[in-house]
């Protein structure tokens, strides 16, 4: 949890994928309503850059998305979270996790024999 999406940079988002995330959802304040003036605008640009990177390296750009809402919109947050989780479920495991799962499976089969 970060106090402002303006603290997010591309490396943090990519690290999440390295650490095994199948998708990353960035939730910032409404645009024009940032307590730190333009943190969420900067975050939007960084999320876009990571979107492009994920596209280029074939991890899949749709695995990252930024949403904007206010602290008072709890039900909307829940709806966005459910929507994103559903979307990532449809996409399935990230290619990284598929490779890791394959390796783990191979190791367990080897151990069994």
């Amino acid at each position, binding site marked *: 949890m970060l106090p402002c999406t303006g603290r997010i940079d591309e*490396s943090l988002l*990519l690290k999440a994928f390295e650490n095994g995330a199948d998708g990353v959802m960035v939730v910032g304040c409404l645009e024009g309503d940032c307590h730190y003036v333009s943190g969420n605008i900067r975050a939007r640009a960084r999320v876009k850059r990571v979107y492009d990177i994920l596209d*280029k*390296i*074939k991890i899949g750009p749709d695995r990252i998305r930024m949403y904007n809402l206010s602290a008072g919109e709890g039900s909307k947050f829940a709806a966005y979270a459910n929507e994103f989780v559903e979307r990532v479920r449809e996409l399935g495991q*990230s*290619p990284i996790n598929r490779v890791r799962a394959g390796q783990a499976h191979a190791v367990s089969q080897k151990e069994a024999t």
Partner: protein
Amino acid sequence: MITGTPKPIEEIMEMIESYDNIILAGCHGCVTVCRVGGEKEVQVLASTLRLAREASGKPIKIREVSLERQCDPEYVEQMRPYVEDYQAVLSIACGAGIQFLAEKFTTTPLLPGINTGFLGVTERQGEWAERCQGCGDCVLHLTGGICPVTRCAKSLFHGPCGGSVQGICEVDKSVKCGWQLIIDRLKALDQMDNYTKFKPFKGWSSARDGGPRRIIREDMI
């Protein structure tokens, strides 16, 4: 500053294809300022390469390093204790820094992660423009602080050519005529006498034409 642009990720992937462990070296100098080769860019590129390689089933180990400057020996030497533990160094410093690493670490392949651009300025965030070609014989005091070598596409020395139309260069509509800029500035400074002064032909021996240049300051040696 020296500017640069990132190389396409596909090109970098091809360069490192045969390696399993590399150093990714950034620089805290010019390339940090123009957001192409600093500590943050090292982190992002390292993560990107690790993800891409792992997804392709060929993981790679990357040591992330950011030197104060890759163009000064005292900082480059900081890499010496471990550089031979890695198969290659991918540097995202400028061409000078990359070559300096190659000179110092003769048994380790050096790979460029960026395309080095020019000596320029930040016109606004994300936009850089060339201002100096390092010709070694500065005439800015005569030209209102605007360089005819760099700002004129033809590096003319005695006013605009016939391709200057309403202040725009014939080479590209986005390029302002360097000589129009110079004349406008000289007028504003009330220094138009500089424009009409006879200037002998420029000696280019101090520029790149004589091959790689060297500066020796006896007072500093």
